[in-house]
C-alpha cells in the first residue's frame, strides 16, 4: 500500500491529468468491449463468455493488416470487420444451438471456444508477446494539459469510443433497426410473427458486439502488447463493468467502464499490488447495495 503516492498525485495537477487520461483510455476500451457484451446479453439473453477472444482477434487482425499495408485506417477496419464476420459465423453456427438451453450449456460452448481461439492464435501468430507499434501519424509531440502529458493517440482513442457510444445510443433508441432490435429483445416471438427474420437480428447483434470488441482490440493494439489469452482479463473486467452498470444498459456500461478505468489508474498508485482486487471489491460493494447494478432494471 502506498497512500502517500496517491495523495501526492491527487494534489498535483500534472499527475492528476496524466492519471485521469490513462484511466479514461482504460475505461473507453473497456466500454467498447462491455457494451458489446451487454448488447448481446440484452437481446440474445446469453452471456458471451468468449467475448474476450473477439478483442484478442481484433488486435491481431489489426496488427497483421498494419504490417501488410502500413495503413492505420485499414488496420482498424480489418480489426472491426474481421471480428464482425467471426461473430456472425460464431453465432449462426454454434451459439444459435444453445438458446434456451441452461446457462451451463452456454457457458460451456463459450468456454470451449476460449480454449480453441487461444490455441488458434498461438498457432497462427505464435505464443510470444507481439507489439504493433505506434503508427507514424501519431508519433508526434505529446500535448501538455495543465502540466500533464497526453499522447495524441489517447485523444483519438477516447474520441472513437465516444462516437461509438453516441451512435449506438441514438441508433438503438431512434432508428428503425434499433427499434426492431429492442422489440426482438422484448418479445422475439411477436417480432418473428410480424415477418421479421429474428435469426438475422440475432446474428447481426452478435456481429455488432463482436465488431465493437474487435475495434477495441484494434485500438488497443498500438498501446498494449499482444499475447494469446489477452482477452480473458479484458473479459473479466468488462463483465465487472456490465454488472456494475447493470446488464443490458448502454449508459450503465459507459459509466461503469469509466469508473473502473479511474479505479485502475489511481488504484495502481495507491495499491500497486492490489489494483485488480480493488475492482472486485468495488463490484461487490455495488452488488451488495444494488443487486441489479447502477442502471439495471429489475428483472421481469
Amino acid at each position: 500500500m502506498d497512500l502517500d503516492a496517491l495523495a501526492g498525485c491527487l494534489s498535483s495537477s500534472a499527475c492528476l491529468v496524466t492519471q485521469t487520461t490513462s484511466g479514461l483510455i482504460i475505461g473507453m476500451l473497456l466500454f467498447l468491449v462491455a457494451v458489446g457484451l451487454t448488447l448481446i446479453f440484452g437481446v440474445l439473453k446469453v452471456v458471451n463468455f468468449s467475448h474476450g477472444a473477439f478483442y484478442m482477434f481484433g488486435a491481431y487482425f489489426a496488427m497483421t493488416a498494419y504490417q501488410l499495408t502500413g495503413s492505420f485506417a485499414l488496420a482498424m477496419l480489418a480489426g472491426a470487420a474481421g471480428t464482425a464476420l467471426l461473430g456472425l459465423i460464431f453465432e449462426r453456427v454454434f451459439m444459435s444451438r444453445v438458446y434456451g438451453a441452461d446457462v451451463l450449456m452456454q457457458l460451456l460452448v463459450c468456454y470451449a471456444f476460449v480454449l480453441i481461439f487461444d490455441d488458434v492464435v498461438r498457432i497462427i501468430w505464435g505464443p510470444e508477446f507481439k507489439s504493433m507499434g505506434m503508427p507514424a501519424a501519431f508519433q508526434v509531440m505529446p500535448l501538455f494539459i495543465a502540466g500533464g502529458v497526453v499522447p495524441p493517440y489517447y485523444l483519438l482513442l477516447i474520441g472513437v469510443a465516444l462516437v461509438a457510444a453516441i451512435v449506438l445510443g441514438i441508433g438503438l433508441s431512434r432508428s428503425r433497426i434499433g427499434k426492431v432490435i429492442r422489440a426482438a429483445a422484448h418479445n422475439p416471438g411477436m417480432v418473428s410473427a410480424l415477418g421479421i427474420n429474428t435469426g438475422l437480428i440475432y446474428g447481426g447483434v452478435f456481429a455488432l458486439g463482436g465488431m465493437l470488441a474487435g475495434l477495441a482490440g484494434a485500438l488497443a493494439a498500438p498501446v498494449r502488447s499482444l499475447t494469446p489469452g489477452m482477452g480473458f482479463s479484458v473479459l473479466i473486467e468488462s463483465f465487472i463493468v456490465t454488472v456494475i452498470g447493470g446488464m443490458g444498459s448502454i449508459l450503465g456500461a459507459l459509466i461503469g467502464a469509466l469508473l473502473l478505468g479511474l479505479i485502475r489508474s489511481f488504484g495502481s498508485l495507491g495499491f500497486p499490488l492490489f489494483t485488480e482486487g480493488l475492482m472486485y471489491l468495488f463490484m461487490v460493494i455495488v452488488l451488495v447495495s444494488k443487486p441489479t447494478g447502477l442502471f439495471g432494471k429489475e428483472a421481469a
Partner: protein
Amino acid sequence: MTELEAGRAETLASVRGGAAFQRYRDVLIAVIAFAVLASLPLFTGSKALLDFVIRCSAYGLFATSLNLLVGYTGLTSFGHGMFFGLGAYSFGLIMQKLGLPIPVAFVATLAITAVIAAVIGAICVRLKEIYFAFVTLAFQMLIHSTILSWASFTGGDQGLRGGIPRPAFLGINLANHVHLYIASCALLVLGLLAMRQIAQSPFGYTLRMIRDNAARASFLGIDVWRAKLTVFVLAALFASMGGMVMALFVSGAYPEFAYWTISGEGIFINMLGGVSTFLGPMVGTVLLLLLNDTVTRFTEYHGIVLGVVILFFALGLRKGLLDFVAEWFSHRRDAGEGR
C-alpha cells in the same frame, strides 16, 4: 385416525424403510470401493497409477461438490475453484507456519473455508443465475489476485514452496507414498459417502425442489436463501478437502489452484460425466484426467482438442456420459415392462 391417514402413515413408513435400506447399500458400496482401491498397491507397484488415483481423489471431491450446487440446487457457480485453492493454501500455510498435527490443520482449514464460504455465499446466493455465475467468478479472481499480491505470506506467483511438512500421526505417515494414497482414497470415499447422504436426505430433496421451482419452495415455507447458503458452504467444505488432498500430493500450493480454469474444468467435468446421477462427476473426473494426460502427451495445443471434446458433449450429446447411460437403461427397462 381416518382410513386415509392410516394409509398415508403406512406409505411413509415404507419410504423410511427404503431410505434406510438405501443408506446401508450406499455404505456397503463405499466399503467395497475403498477395499478395492486400498488393495490396489498389493497388485501393482506402478507409482503412476497410484498418482493418478490420488489426483482423481482431489478433483473428484471437488467436482462432486460442485455438482451439489450445479446439479442438485441449480446454482451454476463459476468460481467454485476458489475453495479448492483456499483449501490447498490454508492447509499448506497452517502446516508450514504453525506446524500443527495434520488432523488439526485439516479441521482448521475446514473451519476457515466454512467462514469464508459463508461470507461469500451470503452475498452471492441471492443473485440470479447469470449474476451468480459471474459474481462467484469475480470472487475467485479476487482470491487469486490476493494470493498473487500478498507475496510475503503466500509466495506470490511462485506459490507455496519448500514443501509442506507431513509429520506422522496415529501411525499414518503421509510422506510415505502408499500411506498418502490410502489416505486420499479414504478421504474420497468418505467425502463421496457424506455428499451422497446430503443429496439423499430431506435437505437434498429440498434442494432439488428449489432447483425446479424456487417460488413454490418458498411458498411451502422453505427459507430458500438459507438452504442455498447451507449447500454453498457444504459444497465449499468438500472442495476444500479436494484442495487439501492436492496440496498433500504436490507438497505445495500454487496460484493455478485458485485460478478460474479450475472452476471451468470443474464445470466441464460435471458436463462430461453428467449432472443427473450422483457418480457422474466422478466418471467425468476420470475421463478428463485421462484425456488431459493423453492429449498433453501428443500435442502442446491441448486447448483445441479439449475445446472440440467440450463442443461434442455440449452440442452433440447435450448431456453427460452417465446421463446418457442412465437414460438408456431407463428406456430399456420401460420397454421391458411393455410401457
